[in-house]
């Protein structure tokens, strides 16, 4: 304020447009803020590329030694002689992820639609934090629950076939589903709640019921967010290590029977990574190989997800 009046009385030609002391101070803080943001962005990018590049050399080195074996059906890289057929890890991963998605997607989307279009303000106020608490349960707790409650209490009693050894892919799949359900519910609810009220009112004005408005208008209008929620949950399930390690065991069995113990790519890394793997040993390089594959698959799904989202993206205004 005072700077303004001073500026007005300045006599030097053009000087009244020069920045005041106050503005110079603001510019100084502005430049600091921009640089902090710039560093933050740079660090994020560097970490990501750094991890990718650290994966590559041991992976290539190992692939040079074992190219012919990776399509085999026996995964025993830490044994002598080592075998590198990665198929059991791939089936194990997909069996667990698919079971998890069978839990997370239907229940998560149902919960999201309920919260966005049916629940009263008070119900929403109670349920939404509960979802967030569920999302915050440490995975090791879910792993313990799967190992000591689901496997003996449910899988071994009611699953008709499979090796009863205390571990099961279905137990891990169920717990990974519980783990990812709140992700689907919460992200999809945010997307559906963001659909303008005018869309709903237009539907009601045409004589649509609440269900028709929710499933045929709101769900369609918010589809990009719904797809994002599903992809996020999928990626999370894919990389989940603790639950798979604790509940499905560390036995890379080639099987499609969810009652069997299995090993996922992530849980192999977790398993092998905590053992003693001398640097540059075969086991050490194997961890990087599996890490690279895990990274590639996640990347492909993320790209696919982005494609789907941009295809469905609708602009309201």
């Amino acid at each position, binding site marked *: 304020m005072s700077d303004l009046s001073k500026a007005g009385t300045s006599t030097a030609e053009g000087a009244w447009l020069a920045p005041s002391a106050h503005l110079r101070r603001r510019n100084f803080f502005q430049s600091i803020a921009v640089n902090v943001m710039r560093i933050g962005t740079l660090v994020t990018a560097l970490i990501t590329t750094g991890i990718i590049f650290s994966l590559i050399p041991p992976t290539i080195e190992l692939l040079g030694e074992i190219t012919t074996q990776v399509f085999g059906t026996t995964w025993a890289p830490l044994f002598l002689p080592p075998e590198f057929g990665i198929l059991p890890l791939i089936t194990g991963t997909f069996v667990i992820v698919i079971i998890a998605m069978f839990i997370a997607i239907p229940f998560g989307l149902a919960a999201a639609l309920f919260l966005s279009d049916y629940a*009263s*303000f008070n119900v929403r106020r109670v349920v939404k934090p509960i979802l967030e608490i569920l999302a915050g349960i440490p995975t090791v707790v879910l792993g313990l629950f799967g190992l000591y409650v689901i496997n003996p209490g449910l899988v071994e009693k009611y699953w008709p076939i499979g090796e009863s050894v205390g571990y099961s892919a279905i137990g891990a799949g169920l717990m990974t589903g519980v783990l990812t359900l709140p992700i689907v519910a919460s992200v999809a609810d945010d997307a559906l709640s963001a659909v*303008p009220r*005018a*869309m*709903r*009112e*237009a*539907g*009601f*004005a*045409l*004589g*649509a*019921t609440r269900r*028709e408005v929710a499933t*045929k*208008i709101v769900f*369609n*209008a918010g589809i990009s967010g719904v797809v994002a929620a599903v992809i996020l949950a999928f990626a999370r399930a894919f990389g989940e290590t603790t639950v798979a390690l604790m509940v499905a065991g560390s036995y890379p069995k080639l099987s499609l029977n969810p009652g069997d113990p299995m090993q996922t790519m992530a849980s192999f890394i977790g398993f092998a990574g905590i053992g003693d793997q001398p640097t540059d040993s075969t086991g050490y390089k194997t961890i990087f190989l599996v890490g690279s594959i895990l990274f590639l698959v996640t990347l492909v799904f993320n790209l696919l997800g982005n494609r789907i989202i941009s295809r469905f993206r*609708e*602009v*309201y205004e």
Partner: protein
Amino acid sequence: MTATSTERNAQGVMEFIDPVFTLSDVAVSYSDFLAVSNVNLQIPSMDVTAFIGPSGCGKSTILRSLNRTNDLIPGAKVHGKISYHEADLYDPKASAVEVRRRIGMVFQKPNPFPKSIYENIAFGPKVNGRPSKSELDVIVEKSLRSAALWDEVKDRLNDSALSLSGGQQQRLCIARSLAVDPEVILMDEPCSALDPIATARIEDLMIELKRDYTIVIVTHNMQQAARVSSYTAFFVTEVNPLGDRRTGKLVEFDSTSKMFSNPTDPRTEAYVTGKMG
């Protein structure tokens, strides 16, 4: 033009032969806030009735209570009685979904669904029945023709409705409401987001549509009310003596020509001549 009689009952309310709506002592509240009260009026069939008044006078609230759109707002409650022909609109046995199928609504901002032009029109008929593809084609064309939009969009029915201009989107919304074969169309400031040319087209459309439909329109635009409506209701906001509560009131309801040339209430005259509001 107005084949309806204009008798007045004991309370001085204009009465029509076979009115579409009869509002008796209607008040609408949101939780403990009384938005509008003491509304007594009848709305004639196959004509355009306009609600005018300053912001916050409850005209939109009354309009939205005519097809139970207010039901969707938690805490909203309609007091008094709204009759739709012989039926009580708020009878516990009456279905709001059925009410809204017969009494459509066009909103302030064009709100097409993020679907194709075709699917926007087809949505209503699809949820209300199981029309075949050929029946749907007929409904879509008829609705778009009635809304004077067919010629502009007939070659791109599968394009997104969001690719249309604002005026086209609003005519699409009108076509969409016509597709479920309503008797009444409620319009809540349908031109307030449109430019003058698009507005003129919508006004022409309203005059066209009143041959087949009963139209009730809320508008801030005095000239619009004068141009399109046969009857006009004027609402004001009354502040209570303590000055902490504002409630909408119906001041006057009469033929539009009388309301704009020789209104009974001085407040109406002040408003329509631009001295107030």
